[in-house]
């Protein structure tokens, strides 16, 4: 946009040249404001234009937060020489943004925290199909049925429990309905992973079965917390004995406070029980991307042993590519979990889940 750059520069030059001749305070204030505005335009319109359209630089809309993946992006750049421009945001909002932008979207890649947002972008026809060399690396339940996105790391729902007070933790979600847990279960009603567990419940048990379980669960008076981390705080403080969370919150807590100070354990739920649902973070390439080769390199990188090991060790997730295991020997392998066989493409109906949760009084008040 050279004319705007030029205009701003001219405005600023005039303003700066005129400034000394203006005596009144108000006049000078006006000049300061004009200069600031012109500076802003130059900085925004002209300054960054030289950097943002660099050949080969890749724009990633990142629903995964900076503190989790920024160093991974740096590793990619170091390995391939391809610069990454990451825009961090909420996965759902980034998905809405991509759909709203349409084919002019500057995004090359969408790296989402969960499958739902990927499914929505895919349904809007904004993804291009991934080659089978990529799709084949990951079990098919963790990628799109139509091959437009692929999961790169997994997290599993667990029952975290106070390992001093609780000796026999529940082994299925139905055990949670036992009256002995009344008022003793913590959960995070607005958390996306909890909600996709409920979606999984709907897929596995049908609408009626899911509603039945949710009503019984609500009757057991679970305690609502703002976040998964707060649920673990609640267990540590003795407010509740059990918590429905993702597995890695415990790892993070141990890392922050030291193993000897954490009296909480994870109960993994096997036997295909809905409580052991695996969610994935995944990635897709925009059909409007002008850097498809670089974008594909990025997706391949996320599935490479380096990145998979990073997920297993740094973010405490599960690698989805076989052969990569966490350095921590206490971490179970994904294959040993016997998680329910749900195709994550079926988890897109999040809005209906929220309606159901509202209906049974577990979401809003």
């Amino acid at each position, binding site marked *: *946009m050279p004319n*705007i750059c030029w205009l701003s520069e001219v405005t600023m030059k005039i303003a700066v040249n005129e400034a000394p001749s203006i005596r009144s305070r*108000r006049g000078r204030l006006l000049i300061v*404001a004009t200069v*600031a*505005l012109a500076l*802003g*335009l130059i900085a*925004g*319109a002209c300054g*960054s*234009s030289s950097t*943002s359209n660099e050949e080969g630089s890749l724009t990633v809309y990142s629903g995964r*937060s*900076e*503190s*989790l993946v920024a160093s991974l992006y740096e590793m990619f750049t170091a390995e391939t020489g391809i610069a990454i*421009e*990451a*825009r*961090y*945001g*909420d996965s*759902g*909002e980034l*998905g*809405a*943004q991509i*759909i*709203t*932008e*349409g084919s*002019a*979207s*500057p995004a090359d890649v969408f790296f989402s925290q969960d499958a*739902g*947002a990927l*499914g*929505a972008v895919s*349904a*809007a026809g904004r993804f291009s199909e991934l080659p089978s060399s990529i799709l084949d690396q990951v079990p098919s339940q963790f990628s799109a049925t139509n091959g437009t996105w692929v999961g790169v790391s997994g997290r599993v729902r667990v029952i975290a429990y106070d390992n001093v007070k609780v000796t026999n933790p529940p082994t299925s979600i139905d055990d949670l309905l036992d009256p002995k847990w009344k008022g003793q279960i913590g959960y995070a*009603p*607005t958390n996306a992973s909890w*909600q996709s567990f409920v979606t999984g419940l709907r897929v596995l048990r049908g609408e009626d079965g899911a509603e039945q379980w949710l009503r019984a669960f609500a009757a057991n008076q679970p*305690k*609502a*917390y*703002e*976040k998964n*981390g*707060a649920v673990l705080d609640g267990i540590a403080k003795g407010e509740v004995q059990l918590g429905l969370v993702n597995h890695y919150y415990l790892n*993070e807590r141990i890392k922050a406070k030291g193993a000897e100070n954490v009296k909480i354990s994870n109960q993994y739920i096997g036997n295909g029980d809905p409580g052991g649902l695996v969610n994935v973070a995944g990635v897709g390439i925009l059909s409007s991307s002008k850097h498809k080769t670089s974008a594909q390199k990025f997706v391949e990188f996320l599935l490479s042993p380096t990145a998979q090991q990073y997920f297993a060790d740094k973010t405490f997730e599960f690698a989805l590519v076989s052969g990569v295991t966490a350095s921590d020997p206490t971490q179970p392998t994904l294959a040993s979990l016997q998680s329910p066989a749900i195709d994550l493409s079926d988890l897109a109906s*999040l*809005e209906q*889940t*929220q309606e159901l949760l*509202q209906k049974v009084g577990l*979401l*809003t*008040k």
Partner: protein
Amino acid sequence: MMTKEAVLDQTPGVRRRASMPLGVSPVVAIVAVLAAAIAALPLLYLLIQASSRGLDTVVEEIWQRRTFDLVLRSLSLAFVVTALSLVVGVCSAFFIVRTNLPGYRIFAVALVLPLAMPSYVAAYAWISWVPSLAGFWGAVLVLTSISFPFVFLPVAASLRRIDARQEDVARSLGLTSRHVAFRLTLRQIRPAATAGALMVGLYALSDFGAVATMRFESFTWVIFGAYRAGFNPTRAAILSLALVAISIIFVWLELVVRGDGRAAKVGAGVSRAPNRLKLGPSRFPAAALLSVVVVVTLAIPFVLVLRWFFEAADSGIDSGEIFGAMRQTVFVSFLATVGAVFFAVPAAVLAARVKARWAQSTERTVFVIHALPGIVIGLAVVYLGIRLVPSMYQRLPMLIFAYVVLFMSLAVGSVRASVEISPVALEDSAQSLGLSRFAVFRKMTLPLARPGIMAGAALVFLTVMKELPATILLRPTGMDTLATELWNRTSVADYAAASPYALVLILVAAVPAALLTFTRETR
């Protein structure tokens, strides 16, 4: 009886001559109309998006029990928050301006500072301390805490402007003190109170941070959900339009309730500052009551943020990063403020000076989208921006533009109030002495409205600082503000890691908030 009414209605000063063709410079009128057009842009997006699946979808979405319930829930939230803000705002303004309450100067500042608190921070602070607050009353608590200064500020300002001689006259004509209070004083503050109430009502409708954290299902919650969980922009647009319809009613209601405010419009002449009412021993309970307001709206959330901050201080704080984000935040907020004031002043002047319907509608349009949550305005700018000016997409000018659309209405109210109290007669005589209408605007209207402009600017500045959803959508890649950094940290870890950003954000936003007190004080 007739005489008393006549006294109350007296307007020393000059009423506008009916024959004036247009009371303001054409330049002012054009920029004002432009401001309204800019403010209406999101509506264009909403109409396109809402109709994208045909009219049937629109009717189906609106015409269901759930939507009706939603309207009721949001209206009751807005209503309760507005009513409480009116009570708290008007009462505390009265105590501070018209009584000898101990420490009224300190209270005058402390009662404005809650404006600096982002709703999501205050809500999170409360709910982490008292989890059972979740729901309607938690949302009411947080929204009232943050927005009652919208009422307090203009009401305090108008109480300060009241000419005590009018009250003397009213008393000498046989009105009792109670009559004076209700028929004169209350009437004089009514325009200020209703203008404030409108801002509170629209804010309560548009806020997402408080209702999300308090888990109260309001319109904004469902609109966010339609994007985040339903990936259904059409549904979000339809619901947004319903929200716009509600806000049109609010904006219209304010016009009706405001009254003409003529009793407050006193021209030059010998006026007397009002006496401070001597409160006897009752001033201590009164001060205690105001202290409770300050503790609940300001101290408690602030202390909780401080507590997280000291937790975080143990694990180290990257002050360089915080300082960078702060500079960036102040820079964009400043640009946005300049832009918002540039459009708000002409819109306000037009509405204050031209009583014709088109002029009033122009100003009102600016308010109509103020009930929409930031994500809707942000996506509207995404939709239109990437199609109309793709080269500016996710560049600073477009972000600033979005801020202007979002927040120029905040400045319009206080500028308008300021212009309305400056005598038209001065402008008329200046013009009759040969000044052009634009010169009159520049040399008389603007300087006289300066307190209002400064107040409006301060309000825009601190609100832009706290803005999150539109910033995330439209910021230049790599630009971090305090609000985005705060969000960035809360989305993974707990609030301790985010607290340094929350603290700096509150402290920096407190500067323009405190400034608001002083610009009003100097009136």
